[in-house]
Structures are given as C-alpha cells and as structure tokens.
C-alpha cells in the first residue's frame, strides 16, 4: 500500500520540466535545467560555418582581438564551429575560450585538453609530438585521458609517427585503432592550422586561423 515516491527514471525528469520559481537553490537548479532542456532535446536552428564566422570578423572585432591570439575551430562530427581566443597561458600551454565559455588548450599548437564540451579530453602526454611535428624525432608514445561515467580517469595509449614537411601527418596507432592528425607547419616551425583528434566521443577538431590577411 502507501509509500513515498517510487518512480521510474523517465518520470523523474517530469517535475524538472514543469515550471518552478523561487530563491531556493534547489528550485533555481530546476530552472537552470529547464532552460537547458530545450537545447538538449530540440534540434538547434542552423548556425554559421567556419567560413561564415570568418566573414563576420569585422574590422572592429579585428581591433578588439589585436594582440590576442584567436582561431576558428570546428567539431567535425557535430558540424559545430566557433571562434576561440586566448585567455591564459601556463608555461608552453595556451588556453583558448569560446564566447560561451568552453575551452581548448594547446601546447605549441598540439591539443592537450578540452573543457566544457562534454566527454572532455582531461589530460594528455604528448610525448615528443611537438618536436616530431617540427621534423625532429621519429616514433613516440602519446597518452590521452578522459573521465568515465563514474568520474574515474581512463586512458588511451598510442604509438605515433610524424611525416611530412609543411603539411605534417601524424599517425597514431593504439588502443583505439588508428588516429590521424594533420598540421600545417610554417617555415618558423609554428603550427598554423590543424586537424586533431579529441577523443572517442567528440572525434576530430579542425583549427584554422581566424584572420586571413
């Protein structure tokens, strides 16, 4: 006979999706979820491509960005693009943010972490990747780490080689099969553009210059 709430998981979201208001944080949480729900459940309206974003960079925005490194990134699997600009540096690692607070961190152009994409790349050991992409070094090991569904760190290990001059292809083989990254390397050794693997769920990230002179 009578009991407390005993509801299958599907019903659980129901009260969340109904309206709520107030100053209690639990209630505000419900509201936050309510606002988030449409973006998860409804297909979003068409949004700009990398080219369209680049076309929108007006001289004023260019002025604002002057001195701040920026780029345009695309998540290939989801066909989502955004501008990113550098917000912090820790040693050789630069962290870039999207306007809506997702971040990507690069060690001299090589992706080392993502935050806020979901299924984030939590940490990496890029081994000798940076040197090899610049044409110095041959075979090396790379480590990618992620959170699993129970908040524990899980790792993927790859054995990689880098080949080419100017357009460098990095081929990595390991736990996940084969991953192929590619980099456009300038004469001074800087990575100008790239296509790099984030992880099993997010797939490949394309990084292109924001400003084409």
């Amino acid at each position, binding site marked *: 006979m009578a*009991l407390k709430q005993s509801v299958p998981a599907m019903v659980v979201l129901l*009260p969340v999706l109904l309206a709520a208001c107030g100053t209690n944080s639990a209630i505000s949480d419900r509201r936050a*979820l309510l606002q988030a729900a449409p973006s998860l459940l409804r297909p979003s309206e*068409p949004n700009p491509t990398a080219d369209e974003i680049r076309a929108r960079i007006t001289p004023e925005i260019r002025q604002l960005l002057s001195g701040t490194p920026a780029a345009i990134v695309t998540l290939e699997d989801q066909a989502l693009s955004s501008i990113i600009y550098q917000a912090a540096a820790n040693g050789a690692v630069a962290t870039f943010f999207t306007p809506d607070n997702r971040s990507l961190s690069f060690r001299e152009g090589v992706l080392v972490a993502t935050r806020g994409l979901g299924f984030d790349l939590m940490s990496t050991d890029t081994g000798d990747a940076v040197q090899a992409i610049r044409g110095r070094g041959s075979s090396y090991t790379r480590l990618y780490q992620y959170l699993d569904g129970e908040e524990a760190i899980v790792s993927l290990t790859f054995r990689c080689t880098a080949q080419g001059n100017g357009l460098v292809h990095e081929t990595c083989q390991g736990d996940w099969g084969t991953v192929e990254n590619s980099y456009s390397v300038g004469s001074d050794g800087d990575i100008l553009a790239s296509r790099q693997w984030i992880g099993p769920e997010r797939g490949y990230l394309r990084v292109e210059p924001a400003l084409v002179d």
Partner: protein
Amino acid sequence: MRCPPGFTRRVLPTAFKSRLRVPKRLFSKKRPARTGGAILALFLCSASALADPVADPSFSRYGVPGLIDMPAASMAPDADLSVTASNAAEATNVTLSFQITPRLFATYRYSIPASGRGFAGQSADLRYQLLRETGMRPAVTIGLQDFIGTGTSAAEYVVATKHVGRRLAVTTGLGWGSLASRNSFRNPLAGLSEGFEQRPVRDTGLGGEVEYDQWFHGPAAVFGGLSYQLTPRWTLQAEYSTASYDVEVREGTLNRASPVNIGVNYALNENVNLHAFLLQGDRVGFAFRINQNPRIPAVNGGLATAPPPVQVRPARSATALGWQNDPATFEQVRQDTATLLAGTQIELLTLSLDDDTATVRIANGYYGSEVQAVGRTARILTASLPAHIERFEIIPVDDGIDLSGIVLSRADLERLEFAPRNTETLLARTTFRDASLSAPGRPPVADPRFRWGLGPYIKGSYFDPADPVRLDFGAHLDVSYQITPVFSLSGSVLSRLAGNRDEAKRDDPSTLPRVRTDVFRYAKEDTVLERLTADYYFRPGKNLYGRLSAGYLEEMYGGVSGELLWKPVDSRLALGAELSAVKKRSFDQRFGFKSYETLTGHLSAYYDFDGGFHTRVDAGRYLAGDWGTTISLARRFANGWSVGAYATFTDVSFEDYGEGSFTKGVSISIPLEHLAGQPTRLVQNNVIQPIVRDGGARINVSGRLYGKVRPYHATEMAKSWGRFWR
C-alpha cells in the same frame, strides 16, 4: 571493433547520437538535424566499464534476462537498472531489476492477476552467473525464482546459453518447482539424496520468508529456446516452456494449445525495448522495458562550462609585503575572490590569510560533484590571492558547519594543470583534515535570510490491490529563514491540484499501535503542512557532528530529534546515534496532534567497502515501541547514483507483523545531472517499500548528518577526484 579496457561498446542509432551529445548553444550546426528514421546503428565505445562481450537486449516477461517466460543465462550489463511491464492473458507484471555485480542479478516483481480473480502478489528473483560465455563454452547461470514473497511461482533453475555466430543464441535449462510443470521427470539430484525426490509443500503463511528447504526439490523438467538477432534492433525468439499456466487456464484466460511461445523484441533505442509474444499458441501479450545504467551518464564529465584557468605567478614574486595588515587591501582581495567564485556559482563564506596559507570557506549549491566545486575554487584562488600565499585550505560548509579541510599547494596547481596524469599526482599531494576547531573565522548569515521556492510535486501511493497506482499532483511551497548560520527554520506546504490518493480506504488489521498503517488517512486534505522545523547544527568536537531538530518533523509525526555523528575525515567507518521524542500528528496535517507518543532512536554504524558497496546497520527502538535492527546495503556510484535494499527485524513476531512478515524495501537515488548533463545538486530519492506495516517503522527526519558529511570526506572525494580538473 574492439574496445580497450575502461571503454564500453554501445549500440547507438545515429539519430540518437546526434541528439544529445554536444552543448548546442556554443557551437553552431552546419547541417539541419538528421531525420529520426535512421536505422543504421553505429558501434561506439564510450568511456565506461567493459561490458558483456555479447549484450542480449531481451528480458523475459518476468523481468530477468531471458526469452518470453523462460530465463536465459545471460546477464544485463553491470549496474543496469530496468523497469519492465507486461500484459498477457489479462495478467500484468511490473518488475524492477538491478545487475548488482557483473554476475549477480536481482528482480523485484509485482503481479496483478486477471482483474477480480485473486490477489496481487509480490515476488523476487536472484540469479548468479556461474560461468561466463567463451568461444568454447556457454554461459551458465543458477537462479531462484520467487524465492521470497508469496511463492506461487517459486522455481529454481540452472540454465546455459551459447551464441552460435553473432546472431543466434541457444538456451537450455533444467527447472524445478513451477518451471517443472510440464513433461517433468524424476529429480536427477535424487541420485545424490533421496530427499530431493519430493518437493515439500510450501508454507506460504504471510509471505516474505525464504523457503530454502524447497530448493531444487521435486520433479525437474528441461526447457529451452532460441533467439535470433535479425538486425541490431529486431530479435526473434522461440521457446519451449515448462511453466504451468495453471492459474491462467483455471481462470479461462489462456488455453494450452502448444507448449511453444514465440516472440519478437524491438530495441527502440539503447534505453527502451518493446516486446510482443504469442503465449502457448493462444494469446498475444506485450511488454516493454526501460533501462538506465548508473555507470553511463548522458555526458561523461558533464556539460558545465570550462573552469577558470589556473593563473601562474610570475617568477620570484612570492614575497609578502606586509600588506595583509592593511584592511582596505585585504577587503579588496576578499571581494575579488567572492566575485570570481560567484561567477562560477560558488559562495565565499569566509577568507583569512595567515603567513603563507589562505583558509577559505565555501558553500556549493550548484555542482553535483563536490570535487568539481573544490577544483574550481582552487583555480580561482590562484587568480585572486597575493603571490606569497603558497597553501590553500578549502573548507566546504553546509548548514553553517565545517565538513572538511582540503589542503592544496598552489605550486602544485600551477605545475600540474596540464601535466600528464595530473589527477592521481594531485590527489597524492592533497591533504584532507578536520579543520573545524582550528580554522579562523565564522560563516556569515545568509543574504537574504529568507528564501522560498515554489514548484510542482508528484506523490504516489503504490501497491494497494484495489488500485496499485495512485498519484497526486500539485504545488509545493518551500520556505526557510536563517536565524544564525547554524540555526534555521524551514518548512514546506503541499497543495494538491489533482489526484486520487485520497480514495484509498484500507483498514488492515494490526495488533500494534497504528504508527504507519493509517498513512492513507493523511492523504485526505488538499492543502497540508508537510514539514515545519527548527534545526540547529553544531560541531561538538573533532570528528563529531551534531543536529537538533524540533517541530513538525514529517507528514505523520512531530516532536524533537537529536543526532550525533562520529566520522573522521579519512575513515570508511562512521558511527551515529539518533534519539527522537515524537507525537503523532492529526490526519489533516495542520498543527494538531493525536494522542500517540513515543520515544524512538537508533545507534548506527556506516561502512564504505571497496567497490562502491556501502552498508549501514541501525539498532534501536522503532515507532511502535518495538526493538530491533535494520540492515541496509547499497551500491553507491561516484557520480551520485545509489541502488540499495534494506530489511528490518524487530521483536514483533512475523504473525503480529502481518503481511510480508517483516519490513523490507528498495531505495534508489538518481542525480539529475546524470540525465541532463548540466550541473545540479538535485537528487531524486526513491524509496519503494511495497508493504507498509506498523512493526519496524521509523520516522523520516530531514537533514540527517551522514549524507551531508560523507561527500566532502577523503574516501568519497578520492573516488571522483578526476572531476577536480574538470
């Protein structure tokens, strides 16, 4: 595709995949959303545990991995939680199942026979996989069906399942009891002992007792079947059933035209299965299954925005300039810290600087992951505090009391932000301690002191044979007022807008004081005061936590309640004591009381075993004045999920207790972040106690200490330390 350790292969229709995974507001989408009709399935590996090599989506009508009525040897993926409902031959079965460990599986079942023809029954199954399937041998599982409950379909079985190729699975088993109702033969175990030849008559009594002297006794029969996976979504099944169907035949809802059942299973997506079948060549039935796996959230790591980057100090700047003696400068630092923390939804309560150490009290009302809140606080402190501060002590606070002190080195944060394996390195270098007695400062009173919230509620009453599901819908108003940081008033009012819980008219006999069996009388009024209490929290000493509550404690009882908890910050063991003097509230749930009053209380021990299994033992005096013990066992996941069961035995005899013989139930806690991905501390707590009697009953006081304290202690935080950098 082979998945590496720690990653699970999942079958995901593309349409499903495209729907959920990316925070869409941030990036833009080039193509319009894919149409939902994509049948092509992708094999994906997700960062989670290794699943069964061959996942069989099909559950039987009775809620266990199997064919239609016959069990198979397969197991669900570890930790899978399923709800099934079936209707066939006018009988309905609703089940709740949990894969407790990779080899151990349990089902609770509620059966409603053809309307008006007999009583609803409850039963439970337990299955253990003796052998896993390999290329050479089948999986072998031993099972107890309806081993606790009314026992009307009690059976035992040993079953083997072998896949031939990837699509065909062959199952054959040996059944006893109700699984030996057709073409049975002399029990092969009778060769071991003559005693196995006869199955003792079941002494059902009041139900709820384990009748192990029946197990594997009496005649046996061989059952079996085939399942063929036509596509990733469609599976065909045929089985030879040795179940009796006596009840259905007697009631005229089924004719035994053939011993063969055939069925088809359709996987709508990874969480919903639909099942249709033809029973005994006579009646068509339908079933569906919804499953959720606590180990597989919508988004690993959640969808919270990026944390603020660690700010690295310039080299050789770490000299104290004596400025912290300047109140204006200090106030500026405090305000900067508070503003930055507020920007990431964390509240700064106190900040104090002493030599090279900063002590910071925070309140986290936003992040479901306590570790994530601490990690973000630490990142912000690297940006807001003067360069000579080398150590951060972060003290999470709830209800005004310090829950732990987490001590981090600022240089470690700077050095490890992008270092390989930074999770384990940082954890090894982090200290957890009980900071309460030495930490300077006191949390301020909340601003505003008065808070309120208005939202919807759903309240259900289940398992009344007259109407197994009754629901109320309405609005609830929560209010709280903080007098001091540790002393507050809070309450909630419910107002029913629609529902039928007031229609219950049970009058179960009870030889005990009616402490719970008249709960339905409390559902008569539309607007009720659910709870109104004054709560005081305190820290009586090191490792000690205290609570005093007074007022209308819950819907049926009011009074005073005191609790004391001993929990060292790095201990897996906690000990607690709770004592309450309560009086029964009036049925209208306003301010009045009835005459029944009692003293109830327990001594409790909590222990966190390896592998996520938690146990709790309470011993003491229950609401009806009976003395006894409650044992609870739960599998608790680092992401906040918990699935458990409990049983209470008191000095009330099984006869006096009545239906069910003793108190038992299931509890499931679901963190809503798991389903949506957005950070939230909301957790849906569900307690399913099918039979409520007066023996072994306890009061439900809000704000119990263990649940507040444990998440911020070392053992618990270490399990989800990967979230620190998230």
